């Protein structure tokens, strides 16, 4: 099974500060990789580098068969990134934002409605300006755009933050379905449980490198108590 992401000795420098310091990382199709680490360890930088948004100073970086250091524009539209920001326009409605993303990524705009409906963004909510939405609703809009796009590689930075338990469940079920069809998910999270989303691997980032890489030997059982806590809004 070939790697969708293959980073070898990757160095990324921001200003004068190295944020990835010779990082080696591989991920194949159908994997859910949980990326853990302390604040400032380089988790978000890893996702940005994989998305082709961080300039790779040195090393070999191949994503979806493309040298992302040399030709990031060739592959970006096939990657779905959900970061701390939703990339949304406040003066556009939820529906307009999702449709714009689909057009920008050359995806099918007719998929917008179904994706929004799956997250409860129907009726008045769909026509509401993003500026008037709560943090959780904005996150849903960004997620709806991602779900409608159906990227091959999902890069999710704290995707469960701000979401209610029902939406978390929908997100997890959708991601599990995509992964079963060969999509790959890189998930950055500080949470110890991720609902029904069960990582196949857990990598720990520290000092801009992978310091541990653990393959799950068996599926992690769902912890109902933790899911209930997540649903009550205890977000890390």
């Amino acid at each position: 099974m070939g790697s969708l992401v293959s980073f070898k000795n990757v160095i990324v420098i921001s200003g004068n500060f190295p944020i990835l310091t010779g990082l080696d990382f591989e991920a194949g199709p159908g994997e859910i990789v949980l990326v853990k680490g302390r604040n400032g360890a380089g988790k978000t930088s890893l996702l940005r580098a994989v998305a082709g948004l961080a300039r790779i100073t040195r090393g070999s970086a191949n994503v979806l068969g493309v040298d992302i250091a040399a030709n990031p524009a060739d592959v970006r539209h096939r990657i779905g990134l959900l970061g701390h920001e939703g990339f949304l326009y406040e003066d556009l409605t939820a529906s307009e934002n999702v449709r714009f993303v689909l057009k920008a990524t050359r995806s099918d705009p007719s998929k917008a409605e179904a994706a929004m409906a799956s997250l409860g963004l129907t009726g008045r909510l769909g026509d509401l300006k993003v500026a008037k939405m709560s943090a959780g609703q904005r996150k849903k809009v960004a997620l709806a755009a991602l779900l409608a796009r159906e990227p091959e590689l999902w890069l999710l930075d704290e995707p469960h933050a701000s979401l209610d338990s029902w939406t978390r469940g929908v997100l997890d079920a959708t991601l599990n379905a995509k992964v079963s069809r060969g999509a790959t998910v890189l998930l950055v999270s500080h949470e110890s449980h991720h609902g029904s989303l069960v990582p196949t691997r857990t990598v720990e980032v520290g000092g801009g490198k992978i310091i541990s890489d653990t393959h799950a030997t068996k599926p992690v059982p769902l912890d109902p108590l933790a899911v209930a806590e997540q649903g009550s809004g205890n977000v890390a």
Partner: protein
Amino acid sequence: MWRDALLIAAKDLKIELRSKVTMNQILPFAFVVLIVFAFALDTSPGTLAKVAPGLFWLAVLFSSVFGVDRAVAIETNDSAGEGLLAYGVDPGGIFLGKVISVFVQLFLLEIFLLLGVVVLYGPKIGGLPLMAISAFFATLGLCAAGVTYSQLASASRAKQTLLPLLLVPVASPVLLAGTKAWQDAFSTAASLGDPWLRLLIVFAVVYLALGAIFFGSILEG
């Protein structure tokens, strides 16, 4: 690239229609500039009619600073500009889309502003083809240079002060050539072979080319 440009332009114009920043803030500002300069110079109709082209283009230049700043600021909220890169939108298309959007807004503003100039200063308008074509290329040049420098300034913490500092000197050929072309248009010597019009065309073409080539590098930092 053109597909992306039209997508960005349509999105920006929709946002402008919702926010009405140009209509409610930049247009009144441009009128204030016209009125204040009239007070500062002379209130006699002869003098104002004579300097009308210069004051018009000065008001347009100042307005363009706000227009291009707004066009780039749209993309800084919620890191939307980074989102465009993440979606694989062509940076040249982003540049051209911004130029088209600001051009449409600025050209409409100029029509209102021209009416204001006629009412306030009373110049004898003539040479409409030269006026229109020189306004087209002057506006295009202002937008192309403005969007490029606005994106460049947006990375700075002092972007509000840096943009006019960068743009106003760079755009001074537009101010000069636009003024001279309109003075020629108002005179009996109006001709589409006007040398000032040629300067405006060269300025617009050069900045469109520079922006399309370098905007991606500026955007990606």
